[in-house]
């Protein structure tokens, strides 16, 4: 297989993986792992499209360029304009709700087991907060585009 075939095949695989991840984001509860994986794949495929567009010939590589354009459209119209703002909003609301829940139980005397179970919720909260920071970095990148 030629080098171009390799690249073309790799791009198809990665963009397909991205489409699956994007389609998966429509489900009501998205885990932190799924969010991070989706954003990393967006960044991965976006880097590939930037690099490939500089190297491909409009006449010789029309099929691949069409696929790239289609993938860019999905990222821009489906993910950036719709799904990404929804993820930001869900994360913000989830952080607010978890914070409220954790603070509402402050005055109650807790057992060792209760304290250690609650510590897991704090750990979850820290993960949500750092995921939100990560997603916000992506958002800043969009506003500079």
């Amino acid at each position, binding site marked *: 297989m030629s080098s171009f075939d390799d690249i073309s095949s790799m791009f198809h695989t990665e963009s397909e993986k991205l489409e699956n991840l994007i389609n998966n984001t429509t489900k009501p509860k998205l885990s932190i792992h799924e969010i991070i994986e989706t954003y990393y794949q967006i960044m991965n495929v976006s880097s590939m499209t930037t690099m490939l567009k500089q190297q491909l010939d409009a006449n010789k590589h029309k099929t691949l360029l069409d696929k790239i354009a289609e993938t860019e459209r999905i990222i821009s119209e489906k993910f950036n304009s719709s799904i990404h703002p929804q993820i930001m909003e869900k994360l913000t609301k989830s952080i607010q709700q978890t914070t409220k829940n954790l603070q509402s139980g402050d005055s109650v005397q807790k057992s060792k087991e209760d304290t250690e179970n609650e510590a897991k919720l704090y750990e979850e*909260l820290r993960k949500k907060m750092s995921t939100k920071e990560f997603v916000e970095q992506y958002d800043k990148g969009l506003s500079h585009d």
Partner: protein
Amino acid sequence: MIEELAKNLVHLKKELAKVYDGNSQIQEVIPVSTSDLFPILQQDLELLHQFATKNPIYYNSFEKTIGNVPCIVYEGDINKYWLNSIQHGSSRAPFSPTWIMSAYVGVLLAKDLGYQQVIDIGSGDGRIAFCAKVLDLKSYSIEIDDMLSDLQNLLTILDFHPYCSDAMTFDYSSLNLTQPIFFIGGLAQMGGIALASGVLEKIDSISDLKKNAGWVFAGTYSQKYAPDPKNEAGWGTLIEKNNLKSIQTLSLPTVWTFHEQDETPYIFAQTI
């Protein structure tokens, strides 16, 4: 003797990390009694135990021999203080304490260096100021967070003068300091630089005080953080910029290095 004590404490921490099988968010140990490895006055050790026992951040304790040292292990949780501190923009670093024993050893060195007053900046639950009082030094504890400040007021077994105040605007001249040493809470990369710079500026404005003042900075060699070009565990640039020199470094266990190989280097510095 102080360096030996620090090394023995680090060894104790490493032994605890090997055998600890609990689930608490934070944990630390205090030897039960004075020994060759920990030649500390028994009455001082008892005060340190009182501080831990009265402190609501600890919810459980048990006796355990670690290495060959009979100790009490204290298990605690600081999550609610963390959550409160991050909700106030004024708080520069989230609360994460040093070990009580590390606070004691650090203050022991400060005393050995000839300092007469300890000012615990961003003091959390006030353990460094408390240890200074245990060691018969004048001590002051400055903490901006109201929840932590309330906590300190529960722990004044000895009066270490807790103040709920912003250390960057605090009136240090009101304390009539002569030979003070300032323990700066927070790593350089976690708000410590801003805090230390603010306090240094305040001390600079008090005639002749800076030349007699000492500084203790909690550093890190963790690769999680960008290194300081002048080293000193993140504090080199600040030390140079403020005409200070590092005179000694003590490596001591802290809550945040319990699961790490490296301890926390405490950089002792004074004016050139």
